[in-house]
């Protein structure tokens, strides 16, 4: 039993260390083209964003509403809560040419948009 407990402890430490290393990798230098989108009245403006295909791009989403919104897109692989009256940066891509839908999950009926990669 004693050796089991030691073994468990050693394993736990090793796993924790591996996670820390993985998480402490610094962010890469940001040099991506930027695109601005606003959320106002639970709608995206513009609701159609054209971006270059094959390149990582940066969406700057400004939530002008007082309520929080969740920018979500399974196709773009993005899930991000944007508190009311604040801006958020979202990295997407590199995308293949095509259309990628996104929604504001908290107001799905009105908050819809599409990213078009060309």
């Amino acid at each position, binding site marked *: *039993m004693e050796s089991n407990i030691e073994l468990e402890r050693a394993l736990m430490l090793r*796993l924790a260390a591996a996670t820390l290393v*993985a998480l402490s990798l610094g*962010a890469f230098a940001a040099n991506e083209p930027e695109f601005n989108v606003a959320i106002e009245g639970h709608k995206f403006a513009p609701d159609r964003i054209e971006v270059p295909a094959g390149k990582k791009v940066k969406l700057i989403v400004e939530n002008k509403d007082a309520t*929080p919104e969740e920018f979500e897109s399974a196709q773009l692989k993005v899930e991000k*809560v944007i508190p009311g009256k604040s801006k958020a940066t979202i*990295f997407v891509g590199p995308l293949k040419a095509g259309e990628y839908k996104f929604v504001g999950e*908290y107001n*799905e009926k009105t908050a819809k948009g599409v990213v078009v990669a060309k």
Partner: protein
Amino acid sequence: MFGTALIVFREVLEAALIVGIVAAATRGIAGRSRFILGGLALGIVGSLVVAGGAEAISKLAQGMGQELFNASILGIAVVMLAWHNIWMSVHGRELAANAKKVGGDIRAGAKTLSVLLVVIAVAVLREGSETVLFLYGVALSGDSSARAMMAGGAAGLAGGVAVGWLLFAGLLRIPIRWFFAATSFLVLLLAAGMASQAARFLIQANVLPSLASPVWDTSELVANSSMAGKVLQGLMGYDATPAGMQIAFFVIVLVAIWIGMLWAGRRATPGASATPATTTT
């Protein structure tokens, strides 16, 4: 109202599946309900705290605080689940043998229970904080339908909890001989799936490259927005259009935990003299 119920249901579902599996996986360990309830309570309190601090978290790490926070939370859960499974490969047989009695080694049992308490707490905290923010937005909008929407939220919450409970009750029907093998397998998939989701957040934060995305596209078959997609996402991090990095995380964590389980299981067998001959090999 129905829309609200659906959104809350979807948010709660993932946490409910995790809690269902963890609750089943701790079968036979003394005092487990206290730990499960403790995890739930901590998670709910944590949801409120995280929702309240959402703005502050978002601003951390040049606006990437939320992604790093989510990835860290998932990383913690992966480590805890890995630890539990490796522990199980040493103690699972004892537990199966003593399932009717109280779990054998209470001190060791309390340790795995506290590890799983953390898993439950972080799962509830992650999904719960999004639910809280959503309902906060609804309440804030001062809409005349706000009350109906809150009722919808309650219905969605109840629905999510019901699914978690069904999974738990269903798992308990597995015969004891295969029971811990089944729950260990589910925990293994859960951990690998969480690792893949953590990778997605790190890609979103631009910390990791995606390594080709998507590697395949099964959204025609099972879309992530569908109910089946949501359930599979909760159980094993299903992504219809996975990035190479996500697949790498999934496979590496799966293999690493599996090797750990085999290794610990093998090391424990010859030295199992501490426990009486109930364990037959």
